[in-house]
């Protein structure tokens, strides 16, 4: 039985339901990221993530112009595209994957969503067993054109919030986001950073004033210490560049499992 069949059985809102349930059980959430198609057998990374205790997995659909990404994910994107990775093939690979027991969240730039149209795109995600979607260049005020379509297709569109997002807008993001709220820890692009920015703490605090949805903190979280610190305020973390740096340096699924296990432990200790 492939993932696509099992996932097809999931109700709308499954991402959020699963994340909420785990959070409410006292668990700090971990959502590692991988660039789809980065290696021929890239889905092995997903199994390793699941084995390491991930609560959801973000799968990047590579786009030629990753405007919001830093050097590492740009490099991963270029490498995947150079390998011939396409949205179609990545989704086909996912459809082949057995159910990992945790939700898959696609992330990509809006141009790829528009390419065959939002309906077709969301339906394809759904067929591949993907339940959530992040589109970093589709902010709240442009999201209308996708939220309805996504919901109808059973895809939960998570919105991003940033340290400069002003108040009423932040509340609206909390209301309109589905699955979780993606809190962007700093004013910057994706990429590893030495410390967790003060802005991260403040932002999660502000988001939580307006919504009870899970809040995942991303951008720059790369060490167990940062994860532990993030876990004090947010419901969990997204770890992207720290994963992809290792993948680009040649680390295999086992290496990544070991790395994510350190983050898992740090989150659990908190």
């Amino acid at each position: 039985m492939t993932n696509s069949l099992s996932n097809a059985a999931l109700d709308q809102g499954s991402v959020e339901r699963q994340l909420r349930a785990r959070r409410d059980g006292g668990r700090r959430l971990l959502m590692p990221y991988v660039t789809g198609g980065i290696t021929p057998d890239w889905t092995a990374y997903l199994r390793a993530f699941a084995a390491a205790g991930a609560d959801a997995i973000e799968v990047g659909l590579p786009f030629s112009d990753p405007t919001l990404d830093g050097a590492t994910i740009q490099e991963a994107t270029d490498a995947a595209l150079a390998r011939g990775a396409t949205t179609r093939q990545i989704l086909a690979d996912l459809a082949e994957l057995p159910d990992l027991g945790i939700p898959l969240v696609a992330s990509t730039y809006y141009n790829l969503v528009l390419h065959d149209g939002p309906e077709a795109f969301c339906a394809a995600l759904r067929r591949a067993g993907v339940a959530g979607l992040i589109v970093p260049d589709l902010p709240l005020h442009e999201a209308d054109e996708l939220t309805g379509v996504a919901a109808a297709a059973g895809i939960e569109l998570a919105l991003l919030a940033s340290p400069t997002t002003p108040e009423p807008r932040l509340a609206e993001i909390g209301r309109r986001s589905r699955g979780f709220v993606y809190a962007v820890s700093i004013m910057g692009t994706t990429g590893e950073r030495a410390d967790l920015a003060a802005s991260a703490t403040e932002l999660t605090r502000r988001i939580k004033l307006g919504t009870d949805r899970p809040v995942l903190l991303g951008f720059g979280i790369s060490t167990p210490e940062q994860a532990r610190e993030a876990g004090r305020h947010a419901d969990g973390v997204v770890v992207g560049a720290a994963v992809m740096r290792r993948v680009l340096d040649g680390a295999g699924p086992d290496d990544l499992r070991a790395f994510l296990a350190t983050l898992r432990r740090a989150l659990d200790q908190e």
Partner: protein
Amino acid sequence: MQTRDVLAWRASVAGSGVMGEPAARGRFGEYGGRYVPESLAEACREVDEAFRGAWADPGFRGALTRLLAVHVGRPTPLTPAWRLSGELGVQLYLKREDLTHTGSHKINNALGQALLATRMGRRRLIAETGAGMHGVATATAAALLGLEATVFMGERDMERQSLNVFRMRLLGAEVVPVTSGSRTLKDATSEAMRHWVGTTDDSHYCVGSVVGPDPYPWMVREFQRVIGEEARVQCAAELVTGVPDHVVACVGGGSNAAGTFAGFVDTPARFVGVEAAGGAGASGGRLGVLHGFRSLFLQDDEGQIIEADSIAAGLDYPGVGPEHAHLRDLGRARYVTVTDDEVLGATARLARTEGILPALESAHALAWVIRAAGSGELPAGSTVLLTLSGRGDKDVSTLKELL
């Protein structure tokens, strides 16, 4: 008029609203918008608010007008291209943006945005540049107003346009090489946006064409409107018909074309935007979103953006400003392409007949006029206003290799 009957264009749509403010949410028809990371949403809103305030403030406009006069050399002349006109059988007039300080129309916008940045209390300008003209213009405006400037430029463009790199540095700007992707304008733009995300508190992103998130396409067109408004008055004084039959400009992002068209939108003049065959966003692109706006972009079958490739670095952009996409849909403007060879021929021809060495970008517009006059698409006796967006000095080494 006979001219217009010959042309197989859609009847132009009445001017109401066309080339005015964009509609709600920064839309020109279905194009435009503000597709930015949430981290830039507030910054875009601030630019929009500041620009609206400034543009409605006679003090700001007066200050800008004076700067354009005393520093940039506006108004620029309208030059009748007599000898070439004689050869082509049309009456060709050139709006001479090549005579502005720094050598292209880019300075109109850079100075406008720099003045806006000081009004917003920013101390630094960020810019992307391809050929280097917008980078030089931004560095110039920054120097003039005592701002800092950081210019992102693809590594490949830096090699091709090394003198412009040095010029920017002489003007005090920091030039940052962009090594990602195709290492050209598209990547420089991405990098500038990334950099802006981290510096919105003290920096203004000075976008170089009618592209980017709202309010940029609108704001840049307004700063370039001076081209069209001057030309309108000059045509009224110079042309027997008062208004030219055709208004032609090259289109990379489309700022010089938009600024020119804006001055004639309420006239029966027909608009032609000329793209590079290798960078024809309006003519060959499909709907997409990049760099903050929804418009037409060159893309492959998978929805990946294709690198533009033209002899003119300033036209090496895979998209086109959203308002142009809209003008195309409306049939109010037509977008055509010319080849590099036609451009080289047009460049040499203008040099020999009128003593003007145009920028390769601007020579695209001329190449189309030459072709259209030859094919009868421009009937004999037509009057044509062509915006000569910049001077060719920057292109001399390229031409030296190719001619």
